[in-house]
Structures are given as structure tokens and as C-alpha cells.
């Protein structure tokens, strides 16, 4: 990838619509974001956060916690009840179209145009992102290559697998190298190899300067991809920080997994310990023979904060 990513201001400077300004450190600033739906559901209850340029932020949380509502407000798809969202200094609530010029968005549930070929899909949507014909062709070629869809270039999108269609949606977000990518569960439903391919694509985008905000159900994805992780539960951002910062919040940061020696066929049991020594003491006291000790992970933080285990089936699918 040779292209570099421009900020919205840089793009506007290039187009002559904005005076040059010093680079901003904050890519996205969200203040006291509240969303109350018409039926009275409080989906977001005063979320505030700042995302720095070039950062990858993962938003995790149980189903129905308000992650998608949060991202939909960020991408201007949903009008906040109160609060503000600023994208590279542009008020996304007041100027949604201008804010969207800086964003590449993959919605959680979006449909593709099945009768378009892969190339047409990318080229036409690149044109709708206001790239010239030549730029659109080039952008489509790059994205197709990057997503490993070269063999499918001239196939109708309707003939592709679910995973390949999901990759197309991610590719549409990448077109034009927007400085901010907002990806709502980008790898949900993908097989492990496709998921890793998407991770590579995201990493490459970040390497050339993109800021990424993504939501995910996969703890491994959040751990591996993100610089900082936000945990949303019941509409509130209950934790936000690096993995290390979140782990510090755990009083007991060692996880002891073991089988009950009296009933070895029972499910694996988990106990959190303040130290490695404490875990060893427990093993000796209970005469455990089948056990493992590990440093706590994001999964443990998540469980500790939300009181809910993450989806085991999905986690196992990562392999």
C-alpha cells in the first residue's frame, strides 16, 4: 500500500475549502452521548471518550449493551438525544455529510448489490466517495487485491460466499483511504482465516495512519487489534483503557482453571487469585491434579466488569 491517509482537514485544504490548520491529536471526541429511543429505551447513557489519531479502539460489551447504538451515532446514522460527536473537529451531529467524508463505515447489517460484479461494486462506490474515475479504478484494484478477492473481480457479488460478501463491505469502507474507519462487528460470521485476513487489512490501514473504531464480540480480536478497549454495559462506558490498564482493575489477576478432583467429568471451574502463590496454595489445599494457572485476560476483565461471560461458541471459532 503506497497511499497515505489524509485527514478531513487535509482533504479540504487540498480542495481549497479550508485554511491550513495544525494537525489535531484527537480524531474523535464524544461527549455525554445519550440516546433514548421513542419507546423509552435508554441505549446510551452519557458516553464520553476521546480517540487519538492512528489509534485502534475496540468497543466490547454484552448483546444489547448499546455498542451498535453508539457506533451508529458516531457514523451519523442515528441522531443522538443529547451530547456531541466530533470527527476530526467536525461536528458530526450538525454536519453529517461533511463528517462522513472522513469516514469509512462498515455497518453491522448491510446488503450488497448482488447483480453488480465485485469490480463494479467497488468502482461505483468509490465514485460515490467522490474519487475521480481513474482514482476509483485504482482504489478498487487495490482493495480487491488487499482483501484477496482478485479471483472474484468479475464475478457477480451474488455468487460469492457470506464471508466474501462481508469482506466486500469492509472493502467499501476502505475505499479512498479515509482517515477514520468505523467497523461494526467486522468479522462476525467469518471463518478463522477470513477473520485473520481482515485483521491484516485493518493493521495495514492503521500502518498508513488510519484511526479505527470497531465493535466486536471476540475478546481475542479486541486484544490483538486494539490499542485501547472500551467496555459498554447497560448503555454506559464502564471501562476504557489499554489492556494493561484494564487488567490493573482486577484485584485478582491470576486465573486458576481446574477440574474438581472428586468429579473429574464436571465442567472446568475457574477461580481468580490475587497472586501466583495464592493460586498454588489453593491447588495444594484442594489436592488438584488437573489445573492451569494463567494471567487474567481481557475475557476476565470483561466478566469482572459486566458479570457476563463472552460468547464461548464465537470465541472457540477463532481457533
Amino acid at each position, binding site marked *: 500500500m503506497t497511499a497515505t491517509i489524509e485527514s478531513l482537514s487535509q482533504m479540504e485544504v487540498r480542495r481549497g475549502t479550508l485554511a491550513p490548520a495544525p494537525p489535531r491529536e484527537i480524531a474523535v471526541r464524544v461527549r455525554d452521548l445519550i440516546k433514548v429511543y*421513542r419507546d423509552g429505551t435508554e441505549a446510551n447513557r452519557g458516553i464520553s471518550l476521546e480517540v487519538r489519531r492512528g489509534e485502534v479502539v475496540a468497543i466490547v460489551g454484552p448483546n444489547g449493551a448499546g455498542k451498535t447504538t453508539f457506533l451508529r451515532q458516531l*457514523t*451519523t*446514522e*442515528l*441522531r443522538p438525544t443529547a451530547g456531541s460527536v466530533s470527527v476530526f473537529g467536525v461536528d458530526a451531529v450538525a454536519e*453529517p*455529510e*461533511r463528517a*462522513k*467524508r472522513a*469516514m*469509512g*463505515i*462498515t*455497518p453491522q*447489517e*448491510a*446488503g*450488497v*448489490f*448482488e*447483480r*453488480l460484479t465485485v469490480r*463494479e461494486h467497488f468502482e*461505483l*462506490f468509490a*465514485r*460515490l*466517495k*467522490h474519487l475521480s474515475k481513474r482514482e476509483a479504478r485504482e482504489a478498487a484494484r487495490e482493495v480487491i487485491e488487499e482483501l484477496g478477492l482478485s479471483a472474484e473481480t468479475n464475478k457477480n457479488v451474488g455468487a460469492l460466499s457470506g464471508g466474501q460478501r462481508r469482506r466486500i*463491505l469492509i472493502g*467499501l*469502507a476502505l475505499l479512498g483511504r479515509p482517515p477514520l474507519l468505523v467497523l461494526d462487528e467486522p468479522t462476525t460470521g467469518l471463518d478463522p482465516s477470513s477473520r485473520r485476513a481482515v485483521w491484516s487489512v485493518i493493521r495495514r490501514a492503521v500502518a498508513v495512519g488510519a484511526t479505527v473504531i470497531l465493535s466486536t464480540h471476540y475478546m481475542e480480536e479486541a486484544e490483538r487489534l486494539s490499542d485501547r478497549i472500551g467496555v459498554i454495559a447497560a448503555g454506559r462506558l464502564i471501562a476504557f483503557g489499554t489492556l494493561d490498564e484494564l487488567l490493573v482493575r482486577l484485584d485478582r489477576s491470576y486465573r486458576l482453571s481446574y477440574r474438581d478432583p472428586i468429579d473429574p467429568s464436571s465442567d472446568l471451574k475457574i477461580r481468580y487469585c490475587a497472586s501466583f502463590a495464592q493460586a498454588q496454595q489453593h491447588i495444594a489445599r484442594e489436592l488438584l491434579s488437573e489445573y492451569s494457572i494463567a494471567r487474567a485476560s481481557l475475557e476476565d476483565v470483561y466478566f469482572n466488569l459486566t458479570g457476563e461471560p463472552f460468547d464461548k461458541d464465537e470465541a472457540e471459532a477463532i481457533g
Partner: protein
Amino acid sequence: MTRVTDIICVFRIQFAGTRREVGPFLLAAFVFPAAMYLFANAVAGVEVAPEQSRLRFLAGSIVFSLSLTSISWLGYLLLENRFTGRLKLFATLPLAPSSYVFGVLVFAIAQAAVSVTTLLVVGRALGVQMRPNFPLLIVVILLTILCLCGLGVVVAARARSFSQGSLLTDTLGAGLIFLAPVYYAPEVMPRALRVFAQLLPTTFAARAVQTTLAGGHAIGNELLALSVIAVATLALGFKLMKWRED
């Protein structure tokens, strides 16, 4: 310029989506209105139908084809985009909702152009005596499409489900043809319905198309009415078609 490019791209996306269905489309665009023309002739007495009636039937069939393309098919397309998540893709772009609507509208106009041309050729082949005032006919057809598309957009934007929306667009499309004096004279309608029917866009459209097919040009009132309805329905359609939910 950007706006024009946006509209063209939306049109191309919709057009590419139907290119493999050109055959069925042409068949549908032709068969329904042409069959209605023949049916109306048959009911009136095929051989004895006076020339004026045959012209009315042809004008009615043209308006019928416009209703099909502008309400039923356009509505179906908009509903499909909305309820299959494709609209979300457009919503992620720095694209004005009105550009999307205009793009789809251009697609509807292209469909209608094919349909109307086919009907005119068939009418001529079946011996309908006409001296079309083409410039005026084109204006009438464009205004009619705008009126009916506006209604299609309103229904598609407000429908709660795909099935509800398609039922509404089909009912509206058929209702506007058969509850208006399109294929028959207003005098044969029940009095209460007659008053209501006089206000329907298809009534003005049928009268204007028939006049222009006969070579006339005294359609000022019809053009004015169609313009007012087009502005009203499109304004409402644009207001309802938005990317951002409240």
C-alpha cells in the same frame, strides 16, 4: 458536478442490477398495458370502437405503464434497497438522500421511456389514428412520472415492512388507474367517486396524454395540476427519505 456524478452512479447501480432482467422487464412493461388496451377495446366492441375511444384506451395504457414503472416497480426497488440493508450502504457515504432519490428517479424515467415508446409503436401498428405532439407529450410524461414517483418514494420511506410496502405500492398503482377515468369517461363513474377521481394525478395525466396524442396542446390546467402534485409528493418524499434516524 459532484451531485450529477452521484445521481449517475446511483442510476448505474440500479441499472446494472436489472441488466440481466431486461427481457422480463420489457415483457412486463409491454404485456400489462398492451393487454389492457386490447381488453378495453374488446369490452367497447373491437371493431366498432370509435377512434376517440381507441385513443383514450391507448392514453390510458400509457398512463398505466407509467404507474407500473413509477409506483409499483420503483416502490419495489426502493423497498428492496431499504429492507435488504442496501440503503445502509448509501447512508455510509457522503451522499445527499436527494441524490439517491434522483438517481432512482432517472432509472424510473429510463424504464418509462422504453415502455411508452413500445406502446406508441404497438398503437400505431394496431391502427390507432394519432398525431402526437411529441415535445408536449414528453413534458406530460415527465411530470406524470414525477408525481407517481413521489408517491412511490413516500410509501417506500414510510412502510414498516417489505410486504406492507409492496402491497401498498401495488394497491396505489392499480387504484390510481382503475379508480380514475383513465380507460373510461368520468360520466360513467358514481357521482361521489367522480369528484374524488377528478383530483387524482392519473386523471390529469390521461387527459393530457390523450390530448397530446391527438395533436392538441390545450392542456394548461392538466400541466399545472400535475406540476403542483409533483412538487407536493416529491417534497414529501424528499422529507421522508433521510439517512439519519431519530
